[in-house]
Structure formats: structure tokens, C-alpha cells
């Protein structure tokens, strides 16, 4: 074999370079599994299309329709789906099928694996968001904001929300005993949160107090509220829990979940399955 060897100790490639390599491998793996791609993208889109068509009517004091109110919240649920569920089930599968074991046997810095996973989730999440926005604009006449300040808000809510959900998903992957149970394990909290965060049940202000209190502990409620502040006029504020978009609180809760999620990842992540230590 003819690879030239330089004198001295050759350097192993950096974690960032390997992370980028992993991201391309992860994306290839993801997009080649066509049924998984179809269902990952379709689930939030189908729910938006269904719920948006079922509910009709305009909120009093505004010209916002039920479907338009639902759309930004569904984008938040879409972000949670392509980060939290996607990473949670994906990593559980990696643990089950030997991917993690093989990577641990290679001289790969652990951070390269996470960089790859998060970049993959980010690309998929951007795709999902564009798809949901497309449906909302074309089918439900949602108008996109022209004010750059609103897009700036969209940017930081998206980034903080996606990061918080991605880290929580990585941590939650350890809850699943196997790849087969991972789907169920990840979907239950997701669906429950989607209801009590005022995504499937609109408007959020109508939720029973105890559910609302629980929902307010988790990032989905705040991400949805952040996206509504981007796409909906202030005339809809009476339908919110408090008549304000509360950007400061949104940033605070999402940032807290980013930090908490990171701590959870670092403390609970398992490279091996539960039955093999």
C-alpha cells in the first residue's frame, strides 16, 4: 500500500473537520432512507394541512384565521419533530445497530459525532420549516413579514429553539431501551407537549390552567409563542396567555433549556446499550 508517510507523528484531523465529514455522512444516510424522509417531513405538514382545514373562523378583534394562528405554532412543532424526535430515535438506532460502538473504536473525538448529528438535524429542520411556511402561505394565506426585525426574531427563536430541542433529544435517546422502542418513547412526550403548549389546541390562552403551567415549563410553548410573534399581528395578543409576546422570557426559557439540555447530554449520554456494559 502506497500512502506516503511523512517523518514525525502525523496529526489526527480536528474534531470540527471530522464533524463536517460526519454531517455529510449523516445527511446521505438520512436522505437515502426514502420512507423515513417522507414521513419525517410529512408528519408536521399533514397535521398542519388537516388541522388548518378543520378549524375555521376568525379570532375576534383581528383578521387572523384559525389556520393562520396554527401555522407558526406548527412550525415550532416541526422544529421539535426534526430535532427532538429525529435525533432521539436516530441516536437510539445508532446505539442499537453498532454505529456508536464502531465510532468508539475509531479515533474519533466524541464531539465530532454530535457536530455531525446537529448539523444534519439543522439542515432537515430548515427544510421542514420551508415546507411548513410554504403550506401556510399557499393554503392558508399567511403573509410573510417584511420587517427585518421580525425576521431577526425568527432567527434567534429558531436557533435557540432548535438547539434546545436537539440537545434534549440527544439526552432523551438514552431513555429508549432499543431502536424499536425509541419511536414510542420519543413521540409520547412530543405529542403531550404539542397539546399542552397550545400547538394542536388553539388558542393557547384557552388551555386549562394546570396544563398551561406544565406546558410553560418546556421549550415548545415558548418557541411557538416566538414564531407567532413573528408571523401574527399584535391584534391577536388577547388570545395569548398574557397580552404580550414576552420576547425576554422566550429567550430566557429557551436559553435555559439549551444549557440544561447540554448538562443532561453530558451527564446521561451512553455510548453503549443498556444491556452491554
Amino acid at each position: 500500500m502506497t500512502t506516503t508517510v511523512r517523518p514525525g507523528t502525523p496529526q489526527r484531523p480536528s474534531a470540527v473537520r471530522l464533524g463536517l465529514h460526519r454531517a455529510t455522512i449523516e445527511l446521505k444516510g438520512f436522505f437515502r432512507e426514502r420512507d423515513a424522509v417522507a414521513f419525517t417531513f410529512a408528519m408536521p405538514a399533514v397535521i398542519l394541512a388537516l388541522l388548518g382545514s378543520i378549524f375555521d373562523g376568525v379570532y375576534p378583534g383581528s383578521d387572523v384565521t384559525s389556520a393562520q394562528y396554527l401555522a407558526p405554532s406548527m412550525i415550532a412543532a416541526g422544529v421539535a419533530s426534526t430535532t427532538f424526535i429525529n435525533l432521539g430515535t436516530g441516536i437510539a438506532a445508532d446505539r442499537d445497530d453498532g454505529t456508536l460502538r464502531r465510532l468508539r473504536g475509531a479515533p474519533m473525538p466524541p464531539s465530532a459525532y454530535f457536530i455531525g448529528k446537529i448539523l444534519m438535524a439543522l439542515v432537515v429542520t430548515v427544510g421542514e420549516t420551508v415546507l411548513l411556511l410554504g403550506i401556510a402561505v399557499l393554503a392558508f394565506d399567511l403573509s410573510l413579514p417584511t420587517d427585518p426585525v421580525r425576521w431577526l426574531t425568527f432567527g434567534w427563536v429558531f436557533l435557540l429553539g432548535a438547539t434546545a430541542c436537539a440537545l434534549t433529544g440527544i439526552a432523551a435517546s438514552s431513555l429508549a431501551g432499543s431502536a424499536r422502542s425509541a419511536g414510542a418513547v420519543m413521540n409520547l412526550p412530543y405529542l403531550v407537549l404539542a397539546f399542552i403548549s397550545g400547538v394542536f389546541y388553539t388558542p393557547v390562552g384557552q388551555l386549562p390552567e394546570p396544563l398551561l403551567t406544565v406546558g410553560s415549563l418546556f421549550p415548545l410553548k415558548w418557541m411557538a409563542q416566538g414564531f407567532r410573534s413573528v408571523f401574527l399581528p399584535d391584534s391577536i395578543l388577547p388570545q395569548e396567555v398574557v397580552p404580550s409576546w414576552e420576547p425576554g422570557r422566550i429567550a430566557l426559557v429557551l436559553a435555559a433549556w439549551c444549557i440544561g439540555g447540554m448538562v443532561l447530554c453530558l451527564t446521561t449520554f451512553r455510548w453503549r446499550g443498556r444491556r452491554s456494559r
Partner: protein
Amino acid sequence: MTETPAIRVRGLRRTYGDTVAVAGLDLDVGAGEVVALLGPNGAGKTTTIEILEGHRHRDAGAVNVLGHDPAHADLDWRARIGIVTQDSGDLGELTVHESVSHFAHYYPRPHDPEQVIELVGLTAKATARVRTLSGGQRRRLDVALGIVGRPRLLFLDEPTTGFDPQARRRFWDLIRQLAGAGGCTILLSTHYLQEAEALADRVAVIVGGRIVADATPAALVGRATARTVVRWSDGRQETDDPAALIATLTTRYGGAVPELTVSRPSLEDVYLDLIGDGS
């Protein structure tokens, strides 16, 4: 490099609950040696190998692999070992070439991926998705991924389980090439006696988490021939020189010895005897 052993294990122990998987195991593997860890299922082969790979922690004992304790080894140490585990189901949607060249990126001075793919005989399958490979082809891909980083030490955990005889022989040729021209130290586990005999410089028989015999295949065979049994119509004798005995008998009978049989316990009998399963 040749004077320091690649692997040195003393008093290795590992229990799972009440089950003792490894019970005070000693093992040395010299640099460049091919050693087979031979034993029945549940003997502790995989646990031992996984501890040496740094994939599993141990309860007691001293372990040194390429100068380091695998329990506290760093990535530079990882870059010098290659691992082929017992089963794998990953990489399904990637092609053979994508998989090998991706793993080549992790190592400081990898082999050329194309050459590795050719070495394991998968060139015709280079652009095939991994999930479409047969069991034997998948195993050869596992080996390709294990050696692409140019390891000094390669672990092979039951590499040919489930192979048909022809595939097994092709696989053996590959391992011989790695050990011969590649100069790679190899520790392989197997429960096939033939495989140990065909590949290994030394065979360590492991039973109940202990090494019960550690010798060259020839020495194990030597053990077998020492117990040749000669039977004839009115006698039976164990001897280590059957030819001399038969000559004596021939003289005594003045010709053909009636109902003469000479049975040499095969290497398999020795092995079965060692693992406590002999009759």
C-alpha cells in the same frame, strides 16, 4: 518494537452479576504474532477482547495493550488498533466506498481506501449500498474498516461465524496476507478449531474465563499423538510410538495382526478434552 509484547494480561477478572465471565485470565501476545483465542460459546472470549479494546471495563487484573491500559486510552492509542466486532448492522444506506473512505478520515495515516477495498475483495461491490451485501461481504467490509487506519494490532471477534466453507477459506487468505506482508499483530477469537489451526501462530484455549492451554497448533497436535490407542483381537494399548508397537505385534503374530485398529485422537478430541466435554 518486537521485544515489547503487544498485549500483556495478568489476572483479568470480570463478572456480570453472579456470572463470572473472565476468572483470572493471563495472556501474552508478542508483536507480529497471530494468536487465536479458542473456546466454546460463553467461555469469555468476547468479554476478554472487549476489555482489551477498551470497550468494556474490568473488575480486576492488569492489562497492557500497545503500552497503554485500554481503560484509560486516548485517541492516539485508538488510531493504532483496529477492531472487527462480532456483528454489526450499521452503515446500511452508505456504499462500500463511502464507508471505507469516511473511516479513513479518522486516522493520521490511513491506507488508500480503494486498495483496502481491493484487498478484501469488494472492488466489484464498491458502489453497492452496504445493506445489499451478503453476510460474508459485510464481514469483509468490517475487516476493511478495521484495517483502513493501518493498525499495529487488530482484534477479530469470531470473524467467520456463519460463513460457508469456501467463504471461510477466502477469509483466511485475507487474514494471512494482513499478518504476513502487513506485519500486523492479530488477536482473533473463534470457536472453530480448524480456523485456529489454519491462522494462528499460537492457540490459547479459553474455558470458563481461564486459559487452559496455550501452545502452538503443532504442540497441541503433539499432545494428541502422544495418546494413540492401538487395539487388536485380544489386546489394547496406549502408546506414543504406535509404529514400534505394531512391529512387535506383527512379529508376535507372524504376519497380519488380527482386527488391528490404530486411533489417534484428533485435535478436536484434545480440544473437547480440554474444555471438559470429552468422553
